[in-house]
């Protein structure tokens, strides 16, 4: 159709960033964002994930939410690679303020400073924060 052929043939890949700022349990935000990320992986977009503030606890090793009668979805972050999502960032300051280091995390992530993360966010087409 002519209306469509006016656009470029390739659909534009957008840069998405999912920003996690909340502790993993106690609210449903972390799990919901994770599911959204896994679904978005099916749409061939340029997906980034960032953990900051209390969100850094989402990727902490050794969680035992069974005592809260919650599923341990921290294991699911390890599936991200298989879903083709490899751009995972954690904010250095947030991590250090909470006494964490990269060794405490369940997946390899890129540690990034606050300013640098801000610039990265600026470069996104879509930023979703929860």
């Amino acid at each position, binding site marked *: 159709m002519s209306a469509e052929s006016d656009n470029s043939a390739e659909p534009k890949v957008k840069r998405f960033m999912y920003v996690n700022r909340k502790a993993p349990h106690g609210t449903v935000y972390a799990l919901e964002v994770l599911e959204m990320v896994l679904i978005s992986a099916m749409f061939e977009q340029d997906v980034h994930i960032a953990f900051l503030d209390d969100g850094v606890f989402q990727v902490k090793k050794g969680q035992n939410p069974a005592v809260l009668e919650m599923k*341990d979805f921290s294991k699911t972050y390890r599936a991200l690679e*298989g879903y083709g999502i490899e751009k995972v960032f954690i904010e250095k300051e947030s991590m250090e303020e909470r006494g964490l280091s990269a060794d405490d995390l369940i997946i390899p992530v890129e540690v990034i400073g606050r300013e640098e993360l801000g610039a990265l966010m600026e470069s996104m087409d879509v930023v979703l924060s929860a």
Partner: protein
Amino acid sequence: MSYQIGGKSIEHDEEGYLVDIGQWDEDVAKMIAEAEKLPLSDEHWEVIHFLREYYTEYQIAPAIRVLTKALTKKMGEAKGNNKYLYELFPYGPAKQACKIAGLPKPTGCV
């Protein structure tokens, strides 16, 4: 809604997926497969056990693209492709294989 097996009652949702993955065993799998009119061969069991392992490791049912990729890595390309999986599970790996393996519906499956 529930399956009845050996005096046990195993709850499932309206599409037949188990509510509690912990209640699954091979007899449950056979029963779900029977309800789907799907006789289980060794090849079926291979995929079913692979899905169980995937779930234990990652706590999700994989989307099909991810499943085929993971199967290829573990068992080679002959077993890690859509055609092979659809031959085994005509209604699809998500709808049938995950259901028989007692997993929830895959995340990222529309």
